[in-house]
């Protein structure tokens, strides 16, 4: 991280006298985040509800694609190798659209970082969102921070045992539903729900639900901030990507210090002596889901969720001091305030954000363009390599090709397959009657790849060079849509 206003006190703190044993491993300090209300908490609740509704119910959204295709709006059909996303259908060979999506996701993350640091971590990351939900359950069953801390120190009672059992039951329920919703993206959701309920779903469905139930329960219930501190690569990458313009949750040292109790601060101010607004109430630390003290400056543990802002604003409101002692601010302003200079407005429009935005729009436009203009049919031609040509009894030369016709629509289509670039050549399809002037008629079944064995034959006196470029032309009988594919005709 960049410069920090407070001295950087890192763990472990110097050991008290007499206990000077050094450990290379540290035990986890259990964190008991306190509930808080306020602006950023409300934003987080809204994102949590919105995101979860989307995740849990999106598989049930229907999308009509005709009688032969699944009617689920978002579906990963692994059996048939198809990905459906509303009006878009992706075949395995078009997997580069996913590359495009990943590039978009990466640049969006970078843009978010350039504007507001780890805003992804604090508001949108599933680890944060599910942990938030689990903490809600924890508070509802076992009580808020203080109660949980007291109960943790005391022996079990029937009451606390029942509360904890209820907590774990609800956690498992959420975890199970999380895993359950995941598998719905891979099969027809209403059907699978019925199968699951009647214990007739495929074994993979149960296995995946079990795996995802276990991981959700473990990560949101127990691992929590440990995921951010030790497992996730993003904080490390983010630290290298961020700059002094990014808005980060920041404690205003110039306003806060020196810390004093409310009464003492009033007394000091009356004497005309310096007194900070921070009353050292510790609320910012109490609400923090990762146990960070924001007053020590930006640190790897801070996920930028803004809950300490809400906590501090609430306290400032009660003691009649202006809010914003903790707020989103840039590193530039941290330094300017330290030097006694006025703060600057955050600069959103700057080369870095513009470049990210341009890249995002560029990739999105390229993807949109290829999606909008892509054909609903495809054609692949592969020349037989062995033999590359066959001489027939009358001396004529035959080349054999494997032609794949991709009908990417949900209905049966009629095509004509014809030959261009070799007037003396005669094209025919094995197992199909000879074609007329338009070419050999082909019936392509819906949403499938049709494989044809195609022969091109030239008469004995054609006098062709060893290799002649040709084109296979596939024409839709109804719409006239055409796709051409080049190959070669080989002769002795």
């Amino acid at each position, binding site marked *: 991280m960049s410069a920090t206003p407070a*001295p*950087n*006190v*890192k*763990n*472990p703190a*110097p*050991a008290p006298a007499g206990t*000077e*044993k*050094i*450990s*290379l*491993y*540290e*035990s*986890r300090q259990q964190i008991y985040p306190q509930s808080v209300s306020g602006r950023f908490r409300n934003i987080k609740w809204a994102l949590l509800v919105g995101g979860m509704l989307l995740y849990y119910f999106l598989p049930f959204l229907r999308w009509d694609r005709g009688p032969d295709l699944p009617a689920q709006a978002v579906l990963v059909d692994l059996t048939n190798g198809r990905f459906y996303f509303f009006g878009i259908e992706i075949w395995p060979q078009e997997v580069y659209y996913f590359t495009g999506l990943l590039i978009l996701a990466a640049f969006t993350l970078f843009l978010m970082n350039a504007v507001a640091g780890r805003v992804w971590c604090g508001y949108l990351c599933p680890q944060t969102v599910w942990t938030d939900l689990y903490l809600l359950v924890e508070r509802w069953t076992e009580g808020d921070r203080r109660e949980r801390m007291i109960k943790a120190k005391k022996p079990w009672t029937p009451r606390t045992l029942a509360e904890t059992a209820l907590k774990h039951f609800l956690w498992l329920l959420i975890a199970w539903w999380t895993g359950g919703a995941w598998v719905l993206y891979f099969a027809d959701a209403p059907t699978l729900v019925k199968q699951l309920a009647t214990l007739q779903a495929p074994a993979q469905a149960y296995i995946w639900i079990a795996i995802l139930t276990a991981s959700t329960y473990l990560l949101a219930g127990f691992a929590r901030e*440990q995921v951010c*501190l*030790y497992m996730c690569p993003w904080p490390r990458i983010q630290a290298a990507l961020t700059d002094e313009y990014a808005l980060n949750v920041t404690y205003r040292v110039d306003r806060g210090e020196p810390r004093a109790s409310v009464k003492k601060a009033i007394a000091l101010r009356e004497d005309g002596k310096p007194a900070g607004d921070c009353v050292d109430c510790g609320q910012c630390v109490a609400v923090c889901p990762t146990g960070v003290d924001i007053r020590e400056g930006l640190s790897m543990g801070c996920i930028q969720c803004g809950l300490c802002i809400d906590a501090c604003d609430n306290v400032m409101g009660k003691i009649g001091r202006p809010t914003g002692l903790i707020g989103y601010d840039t590193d530039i302003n941290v330094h300017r305030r330290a030097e006694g200079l006025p703060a600057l407005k955050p600069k959103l429009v700057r080369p870095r954000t513009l470049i990210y935005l341009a890249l995002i729009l560029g990739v999105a436009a390229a993807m949109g363009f290829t999606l909008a203009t892509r054909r609903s049919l495809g054609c692949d031609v592969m020349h*037989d*390599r*062995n*033999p590359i040509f*066959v*001489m*027939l*009894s*009358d*001396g004529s030369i*035959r080349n*054999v090709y494997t032609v794949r016709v991709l009908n990417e629509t949900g209905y049966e289509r009629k095509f004509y397959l014809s030959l261009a670039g070799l007037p003396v050549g005669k094209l025919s399809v*094995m197992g199909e009657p000879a074609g007329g002037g338009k070419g050999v008629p082909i019936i392509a079944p819906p949403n499938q790849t049709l494989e044809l*064995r195609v*022969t091109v034959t030239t008469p*004995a006196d054609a006098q062709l060079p060893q290799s002649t470029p040709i084109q296979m032309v596939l024409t839709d009988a109804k719409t006239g849509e055409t796709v051409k594919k080049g190959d070669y005709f080989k002769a002795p």
Partner: protein
Amino acid sequence: MIDHKHQDIDAATGTATTGHEWDGIKELNTPLPKWWLYVLYATMIWSVGYWILYPAIPLPSGATRGILGWSMRSAVTQDLAELRADRAPMVNELNKSTLQQIASDPKLAEFARAYGHSAFGVNCAPCHGANGQGSKGYPNLTADRWLWGGTLDQISATITHGARYGDPDGHQGDMPAWGSQGLSKQQIDDVANYVYSLSNKTTDDVSAGKKVFADNCTPCHGADAKGNPDMGAPNLTTKIWLYGGDKDDLIQTITYGRGGHMPAWGAKLDPATIKALTVYVHSLGGGQ
């Protein structure tokens, strides 16, 4: 050495050091979480499970077997058995159906071609080439002429009983070695000229060879030289030559005779495989 006596605090960062020091450079202590260590131990214990369950420790008498009894060979055997079980319904269909039924049912024909292609690669490709293109002495199966006939039933008979392979139902009949059976060098030269003229434009006078042909060759190759599939006598009027169509090749063939072998696969392959091979070979481009 770790100095357990004093905890050393690095002045610049305020972080404790591990006590390790190399020429004045100290290592900061950034402790790992304990659970991380326990995960490492858990993976160690997990690995012990492999030693017990699977073949693991090499000994002079072979590796320990592991209590699951797993081996690569048994895994392959099991995979093959599963494959056979998967294919069983379609293979049964092949067994039940006639060649004509197989060829006319698109789904069954597709299966037969794939099944036949794989069997072809194992059994036939050494002589006939990977895609049936053949080579000198080994017939090209993709062209439109057949020594022993190109209908489904004829192809099936050839695969099952072979040619000149000792099977009483197999194809018999050789090309005699005329050089030691009554034809003079001049006669052989003449008849080679005549045969060459049947498929090539030539201005030479071939009447002498035509007479030799009429006297000696017509019983098998026919008066019109168009051959006879019942005897494996090739059509001599086409561009397709098993042993080459140059004059030198023809003289060689006439002088010393020909008679390649086709194994009788009926003894080695099951009926379903032979049916699949037949449909596959028939589909290569020359089927009649």
